[in-house]
Each structure stands twice: as C-alpha cells, then as structure tokens.
C-alpha cells in the first residue's frame, strides 16, 4: 500500500513536552492504611515527590522518516512511546500525531494460550485497533507472512516463542497505519526472523510510512535509521544523522 504524502509534512510534532510522574511515599495504598491514617488524625498527603522524566523537549518527525530513539536506562524512551501512542497524557506541552499508529510494542498482545493461532489473529488484531473488515481483508497476507502452515489451527500454548513472535509481528505490521512505533521487539526470535522483521520494516518505510524505533542497539540504529534522537537526563541530547549517533550515545552514557 503506497501512502502518498508530502515527505516533510510532520507526522509527529512534539513541542515543549514535559512528563512528570508523581509519587506519594506516605500515601495510603490500601484501605487499611487509609483507615489507620484517619484514626491517627494524619492527613495522608505530605506532598508528592516529582520525577521529571521528560523536561520540555521538542522535535518534529517528518512523514516518511525512519527515526531511532536511544538513550540510557530511565531516559524516557518508553515514556515517549507511550505518550505518542496516547497511553500517557503529557504533564505540559503538546504532542501532535497525524494519523493512526500501529504499536509494535508488545508482540502478540492479548494472545490466549488456549485459542488457536487463527483465533488469536482476530483477537490480537482487534486489540491493536483493526476493524472487522480490515482484519478479514488482511488475513491472507498475515497468514502468508507468519509462515505457520497448518500449525495456525493449533492452540498457541504449543507454539515456540519464535512462532508466537512471528505471528504477533505479522498481525501488527499489517495494520495499515501511517506511523509505526517499534519498541525493542527486534531482540526476539532467531537471526532469520530478525532479518525478516528488519526487511519488513524497511519495506514499510519504503512505502512511505513513518517509523519510530526505540533500541539500545546503536549499530542497528546506525544501519537502518536515517536519523537518531538521543534522550538523556530529561532532554534531547542529540538529534541528527544516525551515522554520527554512536559517539553521542556513548557520551550520553558517560555523563
């Protein structure tokens, strides 16, 4: 499917985005402790501790770009993916997404071990946001890519991890959304499968889709992405060609 859109129209626009998580260490987390607090006439809230994960960051990702997001642990890579997919709301600032998102964040989300691969395709597709018509229309392609043959009628509890990942990847990549969010999923499966996944993602990129990939694998990002964004300490540490990202990534790690 070819998506026709101007190459530089922003697919994702992040401006002044801040995300804080609040933590109440002294807040009652059970009804029992709430009652005890009341009985001792304590007010539960002595003030929240705030962790700022993203602090006023801004960037634009143009339609059709292939961007790798890197950063040390806790730099906010997963948080920004969750903000992009709408699971989290920004504390302040804006994030604007034009078009539907295909989340390749957890492969085989919602697979039920007692159902067959075929039954799970529909369940998984529905969870990812397919409608009925689309799921039926894409079924042949999904089956074709998953290469499970007759095993598609077997309950997935008998699948190997690789087979499960193949099926999950196949469903997720057949959602015709203009934006793909990919989180570390390339670490699953054997080398053949990884190569096939990368190939598929590159094919989708060639069709004009926007791809945002989160990974720790500097070399993979340098190889596949055109641009890299490195997050560190709540800000954008580097934003530029992926080929130069390695040195910046190492400096972000050592800071």
């Amino acid at each position, binding site marked *: 499917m070819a998506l026709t859109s101007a190459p530089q129209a922003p697919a994702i626009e992040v401006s002044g985005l801040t995300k804080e998580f609040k933590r109440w260490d002294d807040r009652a987390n059970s009804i029992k402790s709430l009652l005890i607090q009341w009985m001792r006439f304590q007010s539960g809230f002595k003030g929240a501790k705030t962790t700022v994960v993203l602090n006023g960051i801004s960037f634009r990702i143009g339609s059709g770009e292939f961007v790798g997001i890197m950063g040390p642990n806790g730099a906010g890579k997963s948080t920004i993916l969750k903000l992009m997919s709408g699971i989290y709301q920004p504390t302040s600032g804006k994030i604007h997404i034009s078009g539907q998102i295909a*989340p390749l964040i957890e492969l085989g989300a919602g697979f039920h071990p007692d159902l067959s691969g075929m039954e799970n395709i529909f369940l998984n597709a529905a969870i990812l946001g397919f409608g009925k018509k689309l799921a039926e229309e894409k079924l042949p392609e999904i089956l074709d890519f998953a290469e499970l043959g007759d095993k598609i009628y077997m309950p997935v509890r008998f699948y190997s991890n690789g087979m499960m990942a193949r099926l999950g990847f196949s469903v997720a990549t057949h959602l015709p959304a203009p934006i793909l969010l990919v989180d570390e999923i390339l670490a699953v499966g054997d080398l053949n499968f990884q190569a096939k996944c990368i190939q598929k993602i590159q094919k989708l990129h060639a069709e004009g889709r926007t791809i945002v990939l989160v990974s720790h694998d500097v070399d993979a990002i340098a190889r596949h992405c055109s641009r890299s964004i490195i997050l560190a300490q709540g800000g954008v540490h580097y934003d530029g060609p992926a080929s130069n990202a390695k040195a910046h990534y190492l400096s972000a790690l050592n800071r």
Partner: protein
Amino acid sequence: MVSFWHLFCLHKKFLVYNMVVRNLKIKYRRSMLGFLWTLLIPVSQAAIYYLVFQRIMKVQIDHYVPFILSGILFWVFLSNTLNESTESLLANCHLLSKIPIPLQTFPWVASLSHGLNLFLALPVIFAVMLLNGIPLRPINGLVFGFALEILIIAYSLGLILSVVMVYFRDLRYLLNLGLQLLMYGTPILYEEKMIPESFRWLLWVNPVGTLFPSIHQVLIEGTWPQPSALLITLGWTVGLLLLAREVLSRALRKGVVEWL
C-alpha cells in the same frame, strides 16, 4: 467527560466482540456441556438453599424452587461480574500499559460475558416454573428488562470498583465481605414481606434491594411490581451509570494507567 458511546465501547465493537467470544470459547471449549456446566454451580447452590431453608428450617414460601433459582441466577451473575471486573484492570495491566485500549473495555467485556450466560439461563427458570406448576404469562417477559438493569448495575459498579482497586489493592478482601452483606441484605433467599417494617428502608439504600423482589413478583406471582420498586431500581441503574461515567472520566484525567 466520556460519552455514553465510549462508555459502552461502541467505538470498539470488534474488540468487544472478539473478547467476549474469547471468554465464551474458553469457557465452553472443552465440552459441549459447557453451558450446562456454568449452570451447575447456581443450580447446586439453589438445591442447597432449598434443602436448608425449605426442608430443614421449614421456611414458608410457595414455589420455593423457582423462587430460589431465579434469585440465585441473578445473584451469581452480579457477584461473578463484580469479582471479575474489580480485578480486570490490574489483571490486564500488561495490555493497558502498552497498547492504547479504552480501560472500560475490560469491565464491560466481563459484564457482557456473564450477562450472556444470564440471558441464556432465563429459559431454564421458565422451565422450572412450568415443572413447579406456575403458568407462564406475558408479564414474565419483564425479567428480560430486569436482566438488562442488573447488567448495567453490574457494569457500573464493576467499573467503579476496578478503578478504586488500582489505588487500594486490599479492596478485594473488602469486596468479599461486601458481597456477603449484600447477598443477605437482599431478599434472595427470603421474601421481602419477611423483613420487619422498621428495616424496609434497607432495601432502598441497596442498589438491588428492590430489583430482586420485583423479579420474584413478576415470575412467581405473575403480577406487576409496585411502581415505587420499579422506579427505585431504575434510579439506582441510571445513578450508578452516571457515577461510573464520572469516575471513569476522572480516572482518565488523572492518568490511572500510570498507577498500574
């Protein structure tokens, strides 16, 4: 504010359909007797209550078997749905924290799956009534309306409890206690008229306090319930639904998913 369209997940019909189908398939897959199997527990519960209350304690209620069975089937629906819904957000946190799914989907799917069992069980009540010598009358059809009301009550309460559960995890222990209180505080095993006049108000502060007597009246007596009883039940249904909508809207605003 969440719209009613979204509250009932009507924008996610394919998702809800597939998740309900999954639940039913898993329940019924192993045997063709699946449906009878889900009936077995309420039916044996009804049998126990029949033995204890009618045979041993000699409670004076006519047509005690259809009386107890209809009450138990509605009650089992409510308690199963509340138990499952309350845990549903925590149980699905791996999905909710990774994929954008409306969180009300989980309590709604739990309510619909159990609700389907309830609707399928209603003909069984009619059969037991016939066996017990109660003629079927058009007024009996009102129980389908009552089933719809209890479905909405169960969904609303389940949605509220599932959100509270995210913040207060010991709710599950209190829920068990609460369900026991509710069961004995509702005329399920006994008749409404056995309650002393000075305690009748208890039925009005109980979301299903007037619903169960209405079910019994429509099925066993075959007459219209008191308009006041119908109105109170309707008031609870609508009130809880509005409250659930408010709780959901606030939970989404406050980012409940971040607490999972």
